[in-house]
């Protein structure tokens, strides 16, 4: 049980990658990429968890109460922002693919090759 969250992170990552590889729609691809990204949230936050620890916020609990690691929470915040921005950029590209190339199937967007 004590390694399950980490194994879960690995599983989510590979599921997301599988979705990206087999995708037939760019929107589906973007969402699968977001799924793969969420595996890193799981990993980071699991690494920082302390048994019986509360949030690292001491507004209503006395200082010195057991709390989880605040650093990974800051790292995950950055990670989420990165995830959102990349999803936004890819979705903008998807819109343009639909408008200009008339398709959102990644397998058909291969103007350059060789």
């Amino acid at each position, binding site marked *: *049980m*004590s*390694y*399950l*969250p*980490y*194994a879960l*992170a*690995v*599983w989510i*990552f*590979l599921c997301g*990658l*599988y979705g990206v*590889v*087999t995708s037939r729609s760019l929107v589906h691809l973007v969402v699968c990429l977001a799924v793969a990204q969420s595996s890193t949230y799981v*990993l980071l936050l*699991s*690494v*920082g*968890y*302390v*048994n*019986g620890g509360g*949030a*690292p*916020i*001491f*507004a209503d609990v006395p*200082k*010195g109460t057991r*709390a*989880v*690691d*605040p*650093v*990974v*929470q*800051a790292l995950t*915040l*950055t990670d989420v*922002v*990165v995830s*959102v*921005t*990349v999803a*936004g*950029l890819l*979705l*903008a*590209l998807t*819109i*343009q693919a639909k408008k200009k190339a008339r398709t959102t199937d990644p*397998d058909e967007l291969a103007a350059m090759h060789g």
Partner: protein
Amino acid sequence: MSRSFRIGLFGASAAALAALMLWSVAGLPAFGQYHHEYGRILNASAPSERHVTNVVAAVVFDYRGFDTLGEEFILFAAVMGIALLLREVNERRPQPRDDVGSDALRLLGVGFAAGLLVLGLYVVAHGYLTPGGGFQGGVVVASAFLLLYLAAGYRAFHALTPRSGVDFAGSTGAGGYAVIGIVSMLLGAAFLHNFGPLGTPGTLASGGSIAFLNVASALEVSAAFVLLYTEFLEELAAVRS
């Protein structure tokens, strides 16, 4: 490369990668057994050193504040990038119509949007005291505008978010963060060194420059998300008309 070859290649590689990654996570401390110094030291010393009660905010805006500068500009640059990618190269944008028919929807929606805006500002302001902060609150503030679009239609949304104003707000937020860091340098300390009165922990007047950085990032994040929504909603409006 045929699709079946691709899936086969991926399947074999993913199996190997899974084995490797599972092998590696077996070496981590067990879940809940985090015992390193970095987190413990910060939890112990941040409230007394910086007079804030939300240690995550202290990490985000002070201890690792330079990362947040980069993160802000990631959002800023990405939204500029989306504006670049969605620009109309040779076509004129068609005028969007107003879709909302119901007055009740309009009334309730605008009311809730106003409430949401206040909630967002509250989350921003209390970011270094209780859970929240510039990023979280900024997203809530931007979603108030999105609710306005849903309730009152595109024209109202567009009227309240003029492009130059939003650009100005976003760049002031992002640039303001850097300027605050420079102020620290002008005061003879390192870039982004905390300055200003540290105040009383648990009140809004605490944290020194953490409070200013909080506001700057809230400004930047809300403007960036409003711009993001504008870009995509313009596409939606163009499709519909």
